[in-house]
């Protein structure tokens, strides 16, 4: 066995599909994880914020090739050119149900279950010619896709009994404070207004309005070439600015919020007040110190970090532990040093393709 994926979420699943596309058989890949369903964690979070539509566009899928994307599949299924036209206009967003169906179908087709081994990997130890994974064997090429290291709740609110995280299941009280300014926060403003609540938005800064998580040029070499050329401090600073909370522009958000404001049911305040419920739409913890696997990896092997992030090569591999004989790569949110949008599906594919290139360039003897 030469290839292992640590993590059975969407980033790991995307890498698996890419490796399969690259010619590896299910028996040549081991996926370590605790959930059979690669969308299990994502499904719960989407349900918690009542998300019905993806922020991503046609390319927001787990397939190895960007074509045919979800718009083409929707056009074929619905026998309508509308999804294609919307895609050309950057207006196509698959529904959450469509996305999840696609994951189920790809899971069935790819042989995912045959490669999945139910185990939590807590240590990755570099050995000669590969990596030893917690007593589960040595693998020449390993992709770490550990996912987010937990939900982030601001320090000052952790002991407040009114607090619920947006990604935890919840209903809405009659007065609700939503902390945050990203897509989850914006979705929660609408949810709470829909539920008849009076909504207070508490935010540190005005939200950025943009279609995708990061500006589009950072999804390709056009933006990435300059990004990769930056020194650690500059890159950390740029990454902070790129990852500021944002949600898409458009009437879908603007009209209900304007209506809520007119009715006196939506307002912005500088700090949490006396509402009945506080919803923290504050995303996830960030930094290797919050992830036991990555923290141990950094400490054990003396890996470089910058701004709490693991320093990676431009192809998402770990520089100190990747050479001509072995590969250690990272996918998902912890790979943002290599790809600012690493926590998106396109980002997962970026890491997966880099990993596949390494695997193909350095096959098992």
């Amino acid at each position, binding site marked *: 066995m030469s290839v292992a994926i640590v993590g059975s979420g969407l980033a790991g699943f995307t890498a698996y599909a890419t490796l399969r596309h690259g010619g590896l058989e299910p028996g040549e890949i081991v996926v370590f994880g605790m959930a059979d369903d690669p969308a299990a964690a994502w499904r719960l979070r989407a349900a918690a914020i009542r998300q019905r539509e993806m922020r991503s566009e046609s390319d927001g899928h787990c397939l190895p090739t960007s074509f045919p994307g979800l718009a083409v599949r929707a056009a074929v299924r619905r026998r309508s050119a509308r999804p294609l036209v919307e895609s050309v206009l*950057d207006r196509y967003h698959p529904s959450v149900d469509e996305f999840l169906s696609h994951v189920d179908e790809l899971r069935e087709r790819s042989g995912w279950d045959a490669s999945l081994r139910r185990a939590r990997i807590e240590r990755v130890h570099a050995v000669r010619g590969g990596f030893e994974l917690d007593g589960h064997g040595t693998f020449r090429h390993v992709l770490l896709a550990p996912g987010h290291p937990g939900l982030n709740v601001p320090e000052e609110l952790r002991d407040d009994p009114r607090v619920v995280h947006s990604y935890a299941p919840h209903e809405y009280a009659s007065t609700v404070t939503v902390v945050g300014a990203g897509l989850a926060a914006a979705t929660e403003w609408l949810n709470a207004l829909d539920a008849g609540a009076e909504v207070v938005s508490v935010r540190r800064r005005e939200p950025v309005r943009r279609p995708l998580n990061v500006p589009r040029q950072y999804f*390709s070499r056009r933006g990435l070439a300059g990004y990769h050329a930056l020194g650690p401090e500059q890159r950390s600073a740029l990454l902070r600015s790129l990852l500021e909370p944002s949600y898409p522009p458009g009437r879908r958000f603007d009209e209900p919020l304007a209506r809520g404001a007119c009715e006196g049911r939506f307002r912005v305040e500088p700090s949490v007040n006396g509402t009945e419920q506080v919803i923290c739409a504050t995303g996830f913890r960030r930094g290797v110190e919050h992830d036991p696997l990555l923290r141990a990896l950094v400490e054990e092997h003396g890996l470089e970090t910058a701004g709490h992030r693991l320093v990676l090569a431009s192809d998402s591999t770990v520089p100190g532990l990747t050479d001509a004989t072995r590969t250690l790569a990272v996918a998902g949110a912890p790979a943002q040093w290599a790809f600012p949008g690493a926590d998106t599906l396109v980002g997962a594919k970026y890491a997966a393709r880099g990993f596949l290139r390494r695997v193909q360039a350095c096959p098992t003897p």
Partner: protein
Amino acid sequence: MSYTLRGRVDSRLAALLPVLLAAVILAAGLHRWWPIVLTALMAGVGLALDVEVYDRLLDYQPGWLAVPLGLLELALLMGIVRLAGIDAPFWPAVALFGGAWLFAQVLGHAGYPLLRLSYGDEGGELGRAGVAAAAVAGAVLVSSGGFAYAQRPPVVHLKAGVHRGPLVIARREILQGEPGAIVRGGIVVRHDDVTIRDVAVIGGENGIEIDDVHNVKLERVSVSGAKLDGIHVRRAAVQISDCSIDSLGNPYGQGIDISYTFDKEDSTVMGCTVVGGLEGIVVHFSNAMLMHNTVSRTTLHGIAMTEMSMGMVERNQVRDARGVGIFCNDHSMCMVERNVVVDTKRDDAGGDLWRAGFGVLASYSSEAELKDNALSANPRPAAAVLDSKLKLHR
């Protein structure tokens, strides 16, 4: 898609390869160079825009933008074709561009992403395949250009002075007259792909005779003293420009006579001055464009389209014609626009009612569409007779 500059160039050139192949086949089939020249221009215009405009202005290019950018490239391309005088027919040229554009879109959205997983991540770059595509495209264009250069007809310089005719041209060539070059006794063209430039012809049965050959151009020629026609064309498409024909006193000949070429490409007569003759410019059973010519002192018709001919008679000046200024006759269809017809004279000699000094006359089941013509000092400005129609457009 956020293209890098190299990504734009790679994607464009790789998509152009099959188009270039099609252009080479088309050129070989048509025996014309315009498909290859057009494809080379498409590449040039596209690459120039990639470097100078698109890469600078477009960090991200949404799918819909391909349509206006395609139209921009098409407009620039056709503008260059027109300015450079490239003999590419309009609609086939547009079709070639449209096919290439569509093919590039299909490749960009589907083909490249399927063939190369990281196509989008790499901003459209194709790696070694991109370099190879550029090399092949360059090699095909350079070799085509070299071949075209080698295939150019030889240039024969006609020195100043009088040369005894008739001069018979029986091979592909460009006959380039030096200032003062005169051929006495006429020129006969008996081969395809002949250009005659800056030559004066005096005398001859016909001044210049062109019969059953292809791709003949007459540029800045002058003819005088021919026994019959100044320029006599049968079963051949010709392009005549900036000529001067003197048929004054000739009781039998026409200035320019183009006949029986309906199954050939369109003939054009542009910028010529014709004086005298029975008919100044006449086409029989032909498709022709007669534009920007000056015709005067003819004894039968100034300009005539007859015997099921079709074409444009546009921006000509016809002065002092006897009988009829512009004549559309015998099942012909004539677009008569922006001409000046003045001082047409009545011709009562034969008692023919249809020679009563018409500015424009449509006759014998013909159809003439008139627009913006200046018809003055003619006894009868315009008329349609014998089951013919005049359509007047404002």
